[in-house]
């Protein structure tokens, strides 16, 4: 839905998590594929989609496994990993 996506457009791409970015990218692609959007609107969506794809790529590139550990009631970073 163009209206939902234009609402989301207000969110700053740099702040999106991978899942959020991918979900919006998915939505934009299917909107572009399935809906008759105005050219201007479509180009805006396209640019947003490109930025989202970049964001996803960067996040994948930079991802590092987070390892935490349950200690009693708490969850703390796990540091017992010896190489």
């Amino acid at each position, binding site marked *: 839905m163009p209206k939902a996506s234009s609402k989301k457009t207000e969110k700053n791409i740099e702040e999106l998590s*991978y*899942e959020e970015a*991918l979900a919006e*990218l*998915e939505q*934009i*692609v299917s909107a*572009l*594929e399935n809906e008759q*959007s105005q*050219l201007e609107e*479509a*180009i805006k969506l*396209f640019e947003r*989609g*490109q930025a989202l*794809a970049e964001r*996803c*790529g960067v*996040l*994948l590139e930079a*991802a*590092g*496994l*987070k*390892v*935490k*550990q*349950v200690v009693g009631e708490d*969850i703390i970073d*796990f540091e*017992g*990993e*010896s190489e």
Partner: protein
Amino acid sequence: MQPSLFPAPIPSTYTVSKLTFHLRKLLEEDEVLQDVWVQGEISNLSRPASGHIYFTLKDANASLKCVMWKASAARLNLPLRDGMAIEVHGKIGVYEPQGQYQLYADQIRAVGEGALYQEFMRLKAMLEAEGLFDSDRKKNIPELPHKIGIVTSATGAALRDMLNTLRRRLPLAEVILAPSPVQGVDAPPALVKAINILDDKQLAVIIIARGGGSIEDLWAFNDERVVRAVADAMTPIISGVGHETDFTLCDFAADLRAPTPTAAAELATQITILDLQAEVQTYKARLASSINSLIAEQKKLLSALSAQLRYLSPTRLIQSERQRVDELSRRAFMSVAYRVNLQKKYLEGTQKRLEALSPLAVLARGYAVVTRKDDGIVVSHVAQASDVMQVRVSDGEFEVRK
């Protein structure tokens, strides 16, 4: 009665071979001796180049020669050494050249395994009958987990292997480790607690794992409490205990059994970062192709419109307008000419009427106009007559005196 040197009846004499054959037959026809487990300690272990294994099994009071042929020896996964307590399965036979009965071994296991195995089978049958292992209880393993729980020893190689695997395959994930001893009497309650803690943490999947070991080492994963905790967990559980050939009851209770901890980490991450990267690439391509086709569509629309525009071009309109202007100006001219003509005719008529009324015409019939000389007033009454008056006739004027 005459005593005899050979008291009758004379028993027949066996040759050594015949006797040995007889003994062998007796032993080999005995069902117990042909399918037997024997427990003892290894001594005189010998492994010649032939690949067969020879040893003596003994306890405090007796010993038994044993041989294990190469084919069985190859399947042996227990490192043998002198003094080791083992249980050997096989059949009793006779090695005739030495008059020696011996055990032809085909399986060897550590002492205690037999009892454990019995217990394993009993528990398995019981829990199976309860439906704990039913396939309709199995939950689906998510393909792309955000949070992965791990229950294992914090210090084992299994954890390191799993973390390396997860790091390589899905570094986006978050791992929450609930460390627990994985062997010994403390292990089962600790494993149960760890499973329960992680089960409350809204994780996508939990891996319960341990590296390889003997059946005793893995025994905690056959503990009824642990098996029930695995079966009852709300979170999907993957078990990865021991090696490929090890099966524990946890494996049966888990939603998915992995042959090793590393394999469990792989099964927990069916979608890897490579898949995700490919997915992003696919989206990029779809994005580009959809915008390109939209633009192509727009171009097509545009060229159709401009063709239409050419058809509707003002040139045509201008031509037709020009024609219309011509037409109008022709009609304007005509109507003006008509009116001019009309005016002309009217003028002519008026002129004629004017002529008819002209005083000149009256003068021509013999009338005259008399005016006073001094002030030019027309004299139409006698009283108006002055001394000198001017008389106008049709062709000129003259003065008259009163």
